[in-house]
Structure formats: C-alpha cells, structure tokens
C-alpha cells in the first residue's frame, strides 16, 4: 500500500492537530503550571488555601481567586500602577526587580506574608513588607499584637531611604569614590497600637546610612535604586536564593552539596532538582531563615 504526500499531510494533521484537540477536550492539554496553591492540611484552617504556597509565577489575579484578597489591594500595597488588567496579570516575582537594591528583599515572600495576614491565615514569618503594605494591613486587616510587633520590625520605609540615598549619593561620590556606600534599611522599631489610626507614618528609627566602606548586605547595591542591567547580570551570575532555587542551582553557584543539608538542618534527597523551599517547609522549618543562610553561602562561594 502506497502513501503519498497528501496521505502524509492528512495523517500528520489528524494525528498532531487532532491529537491536541482530543487531549484538550480530555483536559490533558496543559501548557502552564496550575496556579492553585496547596491547601492547609491540619489545624483550624484545614482546607483553606495555604499562603505559604504562593509561587513567584502567580499573578495578583491568581491570588485573588484563591485567597479573596483583591488585586486592587495587593497592587496598592506593593505600589503597582497601571491598568486593571496590568495589575491583575502582575506576577509576584516582578516585585524582586521592582524593589531591587534594598538591604532586605521584597518579593514573593512579602506577598505570602501580606496575603496571609490580610486573609487571616497562618503564614511563615521572616519576610519584609514595604511601608505601603504595612499601612494597608494596619488599616484593613485584623492583626494580633504579635503581628503588629512583627510588622514594626519588618517594614521597609522606602520613601525615606530613597531620599536619603539621593542626598548622600553625591556626598559619597565626592568624598570617597573608591568606597562603596551601604545603605542599610532599618525598620521602625516602635510597637504599633491597637487602633487603625496608629499607623507607621513616621518611623521611630530613621534609615541608617553607613557611608563607610561596609560590605553591602545585598547584591545590588544602593537601596531604592532600580537595579541596573549590569547589576542584574551580576545577580544572575552569582545567584539569588529564592523559592524556585533547587539543589542543583546552589551547586552551580559553588556551594558544595554536602554542606547544604547541615547548614539548614535538613536531609537532602538524591534528586538535585528538588526545590530547597519545598524541602525546608516539608521539614517544618522556616524558608526565610534558610534563605539567609544559603544566600550567605552562595555569596561566600562567589567571593563576595
């Protein structure tokens, strides 16, 4: 039996395009990760979506769908501007670039914290929030005294820092061009009261500016400054530990495999593709704490 070109064309069309259509109809044609976080499996909140499982690829709209915290609220908290569509499609990992350069990262971990507190769900602490997010929570969320104290210690006052950087950048440039300026972001340390009027409008402690040649804590440099293309490349080369970081990534960044487990108190599986965050959470530990330890190891390995 002979098969000509027309026969091959028909066969290919039926098999490939038809196959895709059938798989789509059967729900097998999935071209992106599901944007539904895992459910909390025990305790008072069993069955609720787990804010700790929010991923960097989740959009604000995905979060609204799972947690009921509106796109507008998240956008306001993290100062995302633009059309409603742009806000809805904004991905959590975009915050890392938006807030690049601060001494403490504002990224997906910050969204987890914000959403957890806003929705009144248990969430892992450790992340920092921008002042606008803290204000939003103080005005709109039911927070415990413990939460308020935490926020007092983990808020980044961006405006003050940006001003301070502007004011001191010129001085640093003139006085010590060879030295690097380390702008350390310090949160307000006062405890917030119970009323919504008691907002952190003024930080109790002003941003601490260290113009001496102190090694920068962060990879990008000056706080409040947008990360430059050059810096961005440098970040990629040295590696930044985040939610998607795997054992393999750490190995590629120069960290010895056998040092990873003991450093963060977990036992590593044989699979190098396992995400550190998943392993740490599965072991009942704090990823935010592990992240700091691992980032230090990565920085050390890269000679920073």
């Amino acid at each position: 039996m002979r098969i000509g070109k027309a026969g091959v064309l028909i066969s290919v069309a039926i098999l490939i395009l038809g196959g895709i259509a059938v798989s789509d109809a059967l729900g097998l044609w999935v071209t992106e990760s599901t944007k539904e976080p895992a459910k909390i499996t025990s305790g008072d909140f069993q069955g609720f979506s787990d804010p700790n499982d929010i991923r960097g690829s989740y959009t604000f709209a995905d979060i609204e769908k799972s947690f009921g915290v509106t796109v507008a609220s998240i956008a306001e908290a993290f100062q995302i501007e633009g059309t409603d569509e742009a806000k809805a499609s904004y991905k959590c990992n975009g915050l890392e670039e938006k807030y690049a350069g601060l001494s403490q990262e504002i990224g997906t971990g910050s969204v987890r914290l914000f959403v957890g507190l806003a929705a009144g769900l248990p969430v892992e602490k450790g992340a920092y929030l921008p002042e606008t997010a803290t204000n939003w929570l103080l005005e709109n969320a039911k927070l415990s005294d413990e939460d308020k104290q935490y926020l007092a210690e983990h808020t980044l006052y961006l405006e003050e820092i940006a001003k301070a950087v502007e004011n001191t950048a010129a001085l640093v440039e003139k006085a010590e061009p060879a030295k690097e300026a380390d702008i350390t972001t310090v949160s307000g340390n006062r405890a917030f009261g119970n009323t919504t009027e008691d907002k952190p409008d003024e930080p109790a402690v002003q941003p601490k500016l260290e113009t001496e040649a102190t090694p920068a804590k962060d990879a990008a440099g000056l706080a409040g400054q947008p990360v430059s293309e050059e810096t961005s490349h440098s970040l990629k080369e040295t590696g930044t530990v985040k939610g998607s970081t795997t054992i393999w990534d750490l190995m590629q960044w120069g960290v010895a495999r056998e040092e990873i487990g003991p450093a963060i108190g977990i036992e590593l599986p044989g699979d190098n593709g396992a995400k550190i965050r998943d392993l740490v959470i599965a072991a009942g530990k704090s990823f935010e704490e592990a992240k700091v330890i691992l980032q230090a190891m990565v920085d050390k390995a890269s000679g920073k």
Partner: protein
Amino acid sequence: MASKRINYRLISQIVFFALIAVITVSHGLAERGVDVGNVPSSSIHSVCPFGGVVSIYRFVTAGNYVQKIHQSSFVLMTLVFISAVAFGPVFCGWVCPFGSFQEWLGSIGKRIFKRRYNRFIPPNLDKLLGFMRYVVLIWVVYVTAVSAKLVFAEYDPYNALFTFWTSEAQVAGIVILVLVIAASMFVERPWCKYACPYGALLGLTNLIRPVSIKRNADTCISCGKCDRACPMNINVSGTGNVRDIRCISCLECTSESACPVKDTVNMALGTPRR
C-alpha cells in the same frame, strides 16, 4: 507537470511554523503585559515534544516535570512518537518549524551553489558527523536528569529563533542560531543533520517503521535524482528499502517529487518489490 502539483509538505510546514510563531509571540507579548485577547499563547517549551522526552526521567523518579515543561509536552511527545513509529520522523520533515526554517534558508544556498549545494562535505565524513546527534542526545538527557532543569534551552537554536526578542533568549542559543543560519547556506538542514538530539531519537524509528521509502529496482533508471533530492544526503538509489536513521520522511526522493519514473520510489507499507 511537477510545477503544477500542490506542495503538500510546504503547506504543512507553513501551517506549523505560523502556529508556533503566533503562539510564542503572543506569549512573549503577554509576558510584557500586552493584552493578546483570544490569541493562543504559551511558552515555546510547552509546545515542544522534546521537552517531554527529557522530562521522562524526572517524571518517573520524582513524579513531576522538569522546570518549564508541562503536560502538553508529554502529549506532543506521545503523538509524535506514534507518528514516527508508523511513518518515520515525519515530524522532522513536515512539522518541525526549525527544520522548515533551515530548509527555507537553504533555498538561498541552492540558488547560489546550484548542484554543489549540500555536497561540500564528503559523504563518509557527513555520515560520521551525523552521529554527533547521538552525543548531543546523551548529553542532553544526562544533564537534564541530574539538574531537573532545561539546560539544553540555553543552547537550543530553535528556542532562540522564537524567543530572541524576549528575556528568555540566551547568548549561547543565539550564537548557535547564527551559526546554523550561516551553515544553511552551504548544507541543507545542518542542525538536523549534525546536532539535533530529537532528530537523532526519532531517526531510530527508521529501523522499525512499517511504512518506509521503497525503491523498485526493476523500473529504476539509476539517474540519481533521488539521491540529489535528499536533504539528508541518503543514498536512496543504492537501497531497496530506506532504513537510514537520517531519513526524515520528507518524500522528496519519491516518484511524486524527484524520481522521474512513475511508481519507482514510494513510501509504502510492506516489503519492497524486487
């Protein structure tokens, strides 16, 4: 008249190339916050069957996919595998947008070099270089298995072709893409011939496929046109049943295209006629 025939293969190539281009461009635009409406949109990796192949190990051992790979890659891998087992690597000759891209570039080289085109490399060396694909295949499968990352995407010129304008593009991939473009002026489908790991894998189905290219020795006039038409430099006139692992089932050698004698070189089921 051959010129009046409908070029079914070209239609297929254009359709699939356009489909992938639309899907990936709309994805790139959507990533930048542009509203693409109802235009289909997904990453290049989610519509690449090779992503499914390199994910098999992880899927079996860890129960999930390599980063950037999704279930759609597994579906495509299965469909392409079925087509290859039946007809050989028709995916390469009729569907793969990167193969089509090289072929279209090659038409420029054909105009320049005419009969010398695709004949610069001695046949023995050409055949030997073809085995490089298997080295690449083994390397890709190995590094993907140990890293659970799509390491090959950094070097993949196919990925670079459709994402060069986005942040997804990698320098290595773009450099290889430029090299492939340059080489396509002298050699037909250079990437497919010497480096494509997926083509290497699919090529193995030539050894078992029930529907293969067959030459009728009784009517063959040994003009060698089938050999010259073959983009993969297979010596079609020297065999009764093409089992060469380089064959991409493009059917350019058949009596429907290059062969001037009716019913002499055909793709057919069963044993070749003597």
